[in-house]
């Protein structure tokens, strides 16, 4: 066999059966479950009189609907409460491991999987959530699925899939101080567009990626879906293995040694061929800020709101005009002149300990600007929260005027009580700036944790490199 990509290796090692047209029955090692996309799947299972194929493959947690304020009295919204209780009931009935709302291990599904060592290299990892691509940071084949597929995985431990094309995104060189993985992925999306990765599985490689922590790699893979790719991945190296060691679900003893030996093979071979290669020079990546209603509508902090009049494609021009109208922005406005009403640091993209440390370093000894109505930090899990508190990060944020919340998806998609009011503008470390995403009429600008922290202090977008 010739030189293989990491994707080739992950794909071929999970094929149970292949149809004539190339459709494959793919074995699924890990299935993560949350409350929003699972109730109809469990119902389907019950109606058909089926049981989960392999209970131990599943791990469940409620994250989208949970309140980030005091949880002692449960969830106020009866519709949200019913959805969370339905997950609890389904997990109990079928015997699926679940971290309940007041368990310290509860958190965003894409934070807790890796944190528990439930995400391991070489696995196929799926979840009824598009940001499942996050887990690809561990050299997993990880992708989001719909509810029908959630039911399919529960019932059969497999999925029907067709192999995607392969793309290598290679980033070389050291990042500037104040520039993070979030800026890298936003720059990639700015370059290839939100449909640039459609039909592809993306591998991120190059010296810049090798130098990233696991948290940074997760941020990168998390937003592969915003580039259109269902999965993103990074090869195994020492950073991967060091991160996994000692985690609750990770192997130990003799099995650890065997596992590591196998994991070390999980990288693209020398000379492996990709269908598309995209290259970026890390030194040229600046802190990024989105200005529109699609993640590809992005510019560097020293840029300006673009002028649709200069766009020749009519569909694109109309899209830009509609976005600027929704965002309440005038063409050619410098990004640094755009003020913010709220700041959200959190989400499966940027709520891990390293993200909170980076934001806290900017915030330390400073105050949230008077025009900012709310600045909030929502840790990705109870364990991230505890770690941050141990390091005193909560005190830094609180002293500056930030709110320090309980873990969950929160204002990334505003399914709980955390949301923007119509017209409010938010510097957000989340992943989607779609219309209404953070609340009807809300205006989202995607940035890194460092840049969100800087915007909170300045009251408008500002180049964090000047604050370090």
């Amino acid at each position, binding site marked *: 066999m010739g030189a293989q990509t990491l994707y080739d290796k992950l794909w071929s090692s999970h094929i149970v059966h292949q149809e004539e047209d190339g459709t494959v029955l793919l074995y699924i090692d890990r299935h993560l479950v949350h409350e929003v996309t699972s*109730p109809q799947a469990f119902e389907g299972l019950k109606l058909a009189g089926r049981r989960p194929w392999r209970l131990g493959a599943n791990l469940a947690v409620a994250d989208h609907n949970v309140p980030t304020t005091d949880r002692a009295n449960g969830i106020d919204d009866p519709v949200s409460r019913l959805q969370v209780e339905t997950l609890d009931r389904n997990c109990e009935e079928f015997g699926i491991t679940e971290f309940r709302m007041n368990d310290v291990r509860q958190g965003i599904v894409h934070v807790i999987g890796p944190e528990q060592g439930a995400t391991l290299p070489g696995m196929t990892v799926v979840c009824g959530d598009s940001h499942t691509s996050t887990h690809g940071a561990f050299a997993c084949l990880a992708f989001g699925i719909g509810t029908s597929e959630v039911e399919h995985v529960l019932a059969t431990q497999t999925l029907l899939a067709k192999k995607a094309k392969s793309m290598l995104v290679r980033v070389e060189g050291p990042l500037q101080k104040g520039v993070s993985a979030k800026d890298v992925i936003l720059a990639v999306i700015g370059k290839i567009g939100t449909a640039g990765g*459609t039909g592809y599985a993306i591998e991120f490689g190059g010296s810049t990626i090798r130098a990233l922590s696991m948290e940074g790699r997760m941020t990168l893979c998390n937003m592969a*879906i915003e580039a259109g790719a269902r999965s993103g991945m990074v090869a195994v190296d020492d950073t991967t293995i060091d991160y996994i060691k000692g985690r609750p679900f990770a192997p130990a003893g003799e099995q650890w040694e065997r596992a590591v030996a196998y994991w070390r093979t999980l990288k693209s071979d020398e000379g492996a061929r990709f269908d598309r290669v995209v290259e970026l020079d890390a030194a040229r990546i600046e802190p990024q800020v989105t200005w529109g209603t699609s993640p590809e509508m992005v510019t560097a902090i020293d840029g300006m709101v673009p002028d649709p009049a200069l766009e020749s494609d009519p569909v694109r021009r109309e899209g830009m005009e509609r976005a600027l109208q929704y965002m309440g922005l005038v063409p050619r406005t410098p990004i640094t002149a755009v003020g913010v009403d709220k700041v959200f640091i959190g989400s499966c993209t940027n709520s891990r300990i390293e993200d909170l440390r980076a934001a806290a370093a900017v915030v330390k000894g400073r105050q949230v600007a008077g025009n900012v109505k709310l600045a909030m930090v929502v840790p990705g899990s109870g364990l991230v929260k505890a770690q941050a508190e141990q390091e005193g990060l909560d005190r830094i944020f609180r002293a500056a005027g930030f709110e320090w919340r309980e873990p969950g998806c929160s204002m990334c998609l505003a399914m709980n009580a955390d949301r923007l009011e119509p017209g409010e503008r938010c510097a957000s470390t989340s992943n989607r700036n779609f219309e209404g995403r953070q609340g009807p009429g809300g205006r989202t600008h995607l940035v890194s944790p460092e840049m969100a922290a800087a915007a909170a202090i300045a009251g408008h977008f500002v180049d964090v490199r000047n604050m370090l």
Partner: protein
Amino acid sequence: MEKFTQLDGLVVPLDRANVDTDAIIPKQFLKSIKRSGFGPNLFDEWRYLDHGEPGQDHSKRPLNPDFVLNLPRYRGASIMLTRDNFGCGSSREHAPWALLDFGIRALVGTSFADIFFNNCFKNGLLPITLPAAEVDELFRQCTAQAGYRLRIDLDAQTVTRPDGKVLRFDVEPFRKYCLLNGLDDIGLTLRHADKIREFEARRRLEQPWLFGQ
């Protein structure tokens, strides 16, 4: 799953690129634990002038008269014309559920986001990809002619315009087979249960750490 064989339907043009699943069905409606009833909230933020919440009587809400789905000429449409990257964003299957519940059975556009595309096939909603020039022409014709209809034949893989022009489209054979016969994937897969067990047993030997918990 409902079969899809042929469809002769009224066409509604949705002339926007990058229509995301948050727009197709906003998150507040995802709190439902059911599979049905999402139709009234399809494109909720574009379709209504007020803010929608679950449990409202949607028939009493003020409609946005400018939104294309509200124009009387498109009432009863079962085919939607779409632009690039339709269905991007989240994996919510509520998006195809909402389209189907509203009455849309087929989408004709230039490109669809991967997860959304996949979800459509699981529910008997047919997404058809055509070259940009052909889609442009469909948008032109549909906007110009009231009562514009298309005929879709999945078996023949054709879309027929009112002027008789036949457009051919590609579809993966396995997906086509399932859609034509309305087959439940799980039932099909379980025919391979022995193979799955065999694969699993081998994996358990080779990578026992995957089966620890």
